């Protein structure tokens, strides 16, 4: 099988080396293909600012705390990315996370269930709620905004009734608490990092070999090297920081694992392709024989299951589930994180990594302001401002893409 294609003369080919890379990158930027650039710039400036204001901000202890703080909300955000990719919204994620944690807590503490069944019951609660939302909106064609708004209220009520009169359940089970209390020693962390980097490198190299064998045009080497080296640098830096402090937190492994798992599903599976297709043009997807309703139901089920996982992590970290679990700013932060990270509110564009990046931005603001002992009034206003900027960048780059004929 060979497909030697002559290079189209209209295709702008870039000079090799850093100059060519710079030119190509500038062109993409001008056409509104911003990717995760704004959020990376934003994150760097936020970190710079806070480290000037308080040098403790960039200490290993604080960065580890930051990652622990964002793991639960970030997990919710991964689910919301899926929903946003369809061009829909899930307002119930916070309430569902609280309810799932409450189900797990009461089963574990009051009914004496073993940890694994209790955890599965919590996740199952999330899945069942998501399935219900998905079926309701596809069968009756009620907009997701309304169904999940009703869910936000209804599941909040269910949370209160599950928790009962006392309103708080203190978690005692060691396994459940270990979800956020476990830190892997440096040797394990470095070993795992090595394996992940090697696997990723091998996958990229294999992909390049396959393309070469099939006679397909190859991306420039610098591009391939970047796709391997970029994540590797981030992983090494993260493990170095964690090792400096208490070790690699299990909660962070779970969060990062879920984010990369969802990203893999989105990019490498048929289901993920169909999610993008439905978000991009639902009618075209339907005509291509994709079961659009099935995709919607599956996405809402997955998103609520991820919300449940986030709620369980939050409960484990707090060592308790109470009436305010999953309420307050949890939901709004999770939505904001997905958008700040670069997932479009218009559907069809985004990635699971945006949940991680956006959660880091929001978590950094909150953490940094706590270090500076600023009141939560300021925190809310700054987070709101950042969200406004991020959403505007999304809208503006969409306009640029349209001008460049790419939307």
């Amino acid at each position, binding site marked *: 099988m060979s497909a030697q294609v002559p290079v189209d003369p209209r295709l702008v080919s870039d000079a090799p080396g850093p100059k060519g890379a710079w030119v190509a990158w500038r062109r993409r930027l001008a056409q509104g293909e911003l990717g995760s650039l704004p959020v990376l710039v934003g994150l760097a400036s936020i970190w710079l600012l806070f480290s000037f204001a308080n040098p403790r901000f960039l200490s290993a202890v604080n960065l580890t705390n930051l990652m622990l703080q964002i793991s639960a909300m970030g997990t919710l955000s991964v689910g919301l990315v899926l929903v946003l990719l369809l061009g829909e919204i899930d307002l119930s994620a916070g309430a569902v996370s609280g309810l799932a944690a409450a189900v797990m807590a009461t089963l574990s503490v009051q009914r004496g269930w073993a940890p694994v069944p209790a955890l599965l019951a919590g996740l199952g609660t999330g899945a069942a709620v998501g399935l219900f939302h998905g079926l309701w909106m596809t069968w009756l064609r009620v907009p997701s905004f309304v169904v999940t708004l009703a869910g936000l209220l209804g599941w909040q009520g269910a949370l209160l009734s599950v928790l009962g009169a006392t309103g708080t359940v203190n978690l005692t089970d060691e396994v459940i608490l270990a979800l956020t209390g476990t830190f892997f020693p440096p040797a394990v962390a470095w070993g795992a990092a090595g394996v992940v980097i090697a696997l990723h490198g091998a996958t990229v190299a294999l992909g390049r070999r396959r393309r070469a064998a099939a*006679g397909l045009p190859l991306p420039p080497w610098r591009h391939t090297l970047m796709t391997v080296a970029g994540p590797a640098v981030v992983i090494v830096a993260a493990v170095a920081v964690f090792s400096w402090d208490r070790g690699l937190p299990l909660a962070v492994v779970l969060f990062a694992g879920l984010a990369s798992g969802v990203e893999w599903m989105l990019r*490498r599976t048929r289901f993920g392709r169909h999610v993008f297709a439905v978000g991009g043009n639902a009618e075209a997807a339907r005509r291509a024989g994709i079961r659009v309703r099935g995709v919607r139901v599956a996405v809402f089920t997955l998103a609520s299951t991820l919300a449940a996982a986030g709620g369980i992590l939050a409960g484990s970290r707090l060592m308790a589930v109470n009436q305010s679990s999953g309420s307050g700013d949890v939901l709004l932060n999770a939505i904001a994180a997905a958008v700040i990270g670069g997932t479009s509110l218009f559907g*069809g564009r985004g990635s699971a990594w945006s949940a991680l990046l956006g959660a880091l931005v929001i978590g950094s603001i909150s953490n940094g302001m706590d270090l500076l002992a600023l009141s939560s009034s300021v925190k809310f206003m700054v987070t709101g401002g950042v969200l406004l900027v991020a959403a505007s960048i999304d809208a503006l780059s969409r306009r640029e893409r349209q001008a460049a004929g790419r*939307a």
Partner: protein
Amino acid sequence: MAATPLLELKGITRHFGAIQALRQVDFEVHAGEVVALVGDNGAGKSTLVKTLAGILPVEEGQVFFEGQPVRLTGPQSATALGVATVYQDLALCDNLDVVGNLFLGRELTARGPGGLDETTMEVQATQLLRRLSVSLPSVRTQVAALSGGQRQSIAVARAMMGSPRVVLLDEPTAALGVAQTRQVLDLIRRLREQGLGVVVISHNLVDVFSVANRIVVMRLGRRVATFDTKAAREVDVVAAITGVDTTESNPRLTAEAP
């Protein structure tokens, strides 16, 4: 030509609110035949094609495939019968690249944990596009970044994926350049030679006369005339389309009248 049509519609009626888009329409296409469907704007041609493609449910009437009654319950059931469609509004996903669009709904997966087999899909896409002489900068460009004609070429190529038995083309050449139009017309002839049934909608009567075996004329939701291309004259077809008798509208004749 085979006696039983490959695909046949009988007594199809379709409403959109108060509008009767199709009224008791019969339609048939045989294997190894090109049927041109012509008519003015709003005559109901696209509605008929969408019914055949299974994306508009059949309200009233029957569908037969090789003489057997079938129920078109959705695009999947039409695809399962081997009916492929190029829609007038193209129905592409702008946020996916060319390969993603060509294989949408029939993605290839590699064995093992690799998921989608992008390499094989890209090779097959490249070969298909080259066979159809579609010129693209790269098969990895997002469809949103393509020109109108390139998008139309992608939509035509999409219908050639898999091995269809009936191909429905709703104005496939409306946005195409000279070379690409000839490619599509050649493709239509090749499909006929391979024994497929082809339905093509076009407003360009020159193209219609050059590829079609039969011409079916629709007006205001009804099938009003059928012509054998060899025996037909263009004026008669135009008359059937507009619903005006040629003798009345012919300026030379009316000029003499007073």
